[in-house]
């Protein structure tokens, strides 16, 4: 850098622990970051040429995808439409006019024309026609990518040095492409602890700070950046002193995590001998290996919707089956819970062009979408049925709000199982079918579900959002969305009790389980199985080993008698804070400057 300026500290939410120091790569992938530049008259021809090349690239890309699709399948027709749209004469004419008359670069012209066409369709008073705007938008985005000199995200992220990604927001498609690049940290302008970026960062074991306002204005590609996920801060152009300090902090954290990881093969057990099953949540098949490394006793939640991400057509049954098989191969004889796709809401996927909804979280998503797209859903279930012949597979339904949905899926799953069996393939005789309890109505009706479902799994992220009527992506409300709210705790407690009463296994797969305080409180409620991101397993196992069940039961009773989330927080912090301080802050138990805890020291202190 030639211009010397002082370092600058930006604050956000540290949503994945650790410290990273590396140059920044600013992603221009979002539509607000489209290059908008006026061009000289002499460059008009050049810009037209760039557009023509982009069109040919996109056509080639689509043609390649199309040739891998069986003719006559629904996605083939959609791909054909995209192909025609990419080379459309009207679109090209309008782009050409923008370049010539307005002297705009090709990127700007494409973005403008796309927006104009989309706006026109969105004005039409017909839901089906409004949906078409997604098709045009999809093609427009593809052209923009091609104009940036690569037809996919992975090309844009063509970095060879360790780098820190700075973006407005990262979609599941973006992060999926990143798993192949040497990315050492994420910084985004929006997001919360439970948003996709945060979950992926924790899965990839790299630090992340989200909700950093104006990050794109403050940080340029090539700037040196420190991302401190422990403190939730980002330092731009740090001084040598700041770098040295960050390296130390990162080193201490890595050493602690390393020590926790050594307990991988020991079971999660309280001091008085209660065993707890800790499983992993995964989004991509490649994370199964990470889960095993962290000592997961199976996969408690496989978010299969990520198979549908960043593609023009849904994955084939065979492709899905191969992904499931890969996970089963990694996980050995441990159980794997496949959750049927939870698409809609915040996880928009281009293979399902969805109508705009005023409240997508309350709209056509998850099992509702599945039951309205029966052919696709049936293929999905067939892939799962085939997987059931290859390992310990169970199937879980997201967002169930009515027992009718459980009945409908059970019928379809059995049909899928029989159709696979009829082809002479190996299938399990029984595929356990469970439901996620994340809609408050289902939590209230937990006893009924416990009678009929093979298992229940509490999804606290959505349960908190729906029970407290707080949009989980709204940062202004993030501090109110606590799983420790007594209203939420009563629902969760009721579900755990219903499971115990009716002998129906209950697990929990929300963020609450990866918070040491949350996990211990849940044990006190009677929960004995939890699923979380792999990286949290060693920490939670350690937390469990420092307490005994008797005190947790008492604590759980007291928590249920609290009036507010902050009372519950205070109660838990009072009772457990000192013993869990290192796990909660990511800093060693010793005071700064003091000696590090000996590695042979007994875990934690005695309870009194």
């Amino acid at each position, binding site marked *: 850098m030639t211009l010397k300026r002082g370092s600058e500290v930006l604050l956000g939410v540290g949503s994945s622990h650790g410290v990273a120091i590396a140059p920044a790569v600013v992603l221009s992938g979002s539509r607000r970051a489209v290059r908008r530049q006026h061009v000289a008259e002499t460059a008009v021809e050049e810009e037209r040429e760039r557009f023509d090349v982009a069109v040919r690239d996109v056509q080639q890309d689509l043609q390649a995808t199309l040739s891998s699709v069986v003719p006559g399948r629904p996605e083939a027709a959609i791909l054909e439409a995209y192909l025609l749209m990419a080379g459309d004469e*009207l*679109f090209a004419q309008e782009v050409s006019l923008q370049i010539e008359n307005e002297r705009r670069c090709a990127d700007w012209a494409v973005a403008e024309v796309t927006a104009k066409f989309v706006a026109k369709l969105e004005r039409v008073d017909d839901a*089906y*026609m409004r949906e078409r705007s997604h098709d045009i938008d999809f093609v427009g985005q593809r052209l923009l990518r091609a104009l940036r000199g690569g037809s996919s995200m992975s090309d844009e992220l063509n970095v060879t040095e360790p780098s820190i990604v700075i973006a407005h927001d990262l979609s599941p498609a973006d992060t999926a492409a990143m798993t192949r690049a040497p990315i050492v940290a994420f910084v985004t302008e929006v997001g919360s602890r439970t948003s996709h970026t945060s979950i992926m960062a924790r899965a990839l074991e790299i630090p992340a700070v989200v909700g950093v306002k104006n990050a794109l204005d403050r940080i340029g590609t090539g700037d040196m950046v420190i991302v401190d996920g422990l403190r939730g801060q980002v330092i731009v152009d740090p001084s040598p002193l700041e770098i040295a300090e960050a390296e130390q902090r990162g080193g201490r954290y890595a050493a602690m995590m390393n020590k926790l990881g050594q307990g991988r093969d020991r079971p999660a057990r309280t001091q008085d001998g209660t065993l707890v099953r800790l499983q992993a949540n995964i989004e991509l098949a490649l994370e199964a290996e990470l889960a095993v490394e962290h000592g997961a006793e199976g996969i408690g939640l496989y978010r299969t919707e990520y198979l549908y991400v960043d593609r023009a057509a849904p994955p084939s049954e065979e492709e899905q089956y191969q992904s499931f098989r890969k996970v089963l191969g990694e996980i050995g004889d441990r159980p794997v819970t496949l959750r049927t796709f939870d698409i809609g809401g915040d996880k928009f996927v281009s293979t399902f062009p969805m109508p705009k909804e005023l409240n997508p979280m309350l709209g056509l998503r998850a099992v509702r979408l599945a039951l309205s797209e029966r052919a696709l859903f049936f293929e999905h279930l067939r892939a799962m049925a085939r997987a059931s012949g290859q390992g310990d597979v169970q199937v879980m339904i997201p967002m169930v709000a009515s027992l009718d949905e459980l009945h409908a899926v059970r019928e379809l799953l059995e049909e899928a199982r029989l159709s696979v069996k009829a082809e002479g393939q190996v299938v399990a005789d029984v595929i356990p079918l469970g439901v996620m309890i994340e809609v408050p109505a289902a939590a209230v009706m937990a006893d009924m579900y416990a009678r009929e479902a093979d298992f229940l799994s509490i999804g606290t992220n959505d349960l908190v959002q729906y029970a407290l009527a707080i949009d989980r992506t709204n940062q202004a409300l993030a501090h109110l969305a606590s799983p420790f709210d007594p209203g939420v705790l009563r629902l969760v407690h009721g579900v755990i009790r219903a499971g115990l009463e009716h002998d129906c296994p209950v697990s929990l797969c929300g963020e609450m389980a990866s918070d040491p305080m949350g996990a211990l409180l849940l044990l006190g409620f009677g929960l004995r199985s939890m699923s979380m991101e792999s990286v949290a397993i060693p920490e939670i196992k350690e937390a469990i080993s420092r307490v005994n069940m008797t005190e947790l039961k008492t604590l759980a009773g007291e928590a249920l008698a609290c009036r507010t989330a902050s009372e519950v927080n205070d109660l838990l912090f009072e009772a457990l804070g000192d013993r869990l301080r290192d796990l909660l802050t990511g800093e060693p138990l010793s005071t700064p400057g003091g000696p590090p805890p000996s590695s042979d020291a007994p875990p934690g202190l005695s309870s009194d």
Partner: protein
Amino acid sequence: MSENANGSRAEGQFSVVNAKGMHARAATQLVKLASTFECKIMLSGPEEEAVSAKSVMGVLLLCGAKGAIIQVVADGERAREAVDAIGRLIADGFGEGR
């Protein structure tokens, strides 16, 4: 319906009957069909702005929802044939029923 003396111009009006209207797949079919004819074919719909039947974006932008009346005007070789063929496609609901 009218046709001028030398037979190079033809037109017709057809109403969209299928529930999903002229969506992407339907528009694709229409564009492919129109492209098999040499003549110039223009469509106009509720918004009354004429677009080429050989542009899928144009056809989509016609906003041909169910119940919309689509005016087809062809000019050139086999114009009558083109209008009739496109008319049949629209009237048949693009092969997907009502």
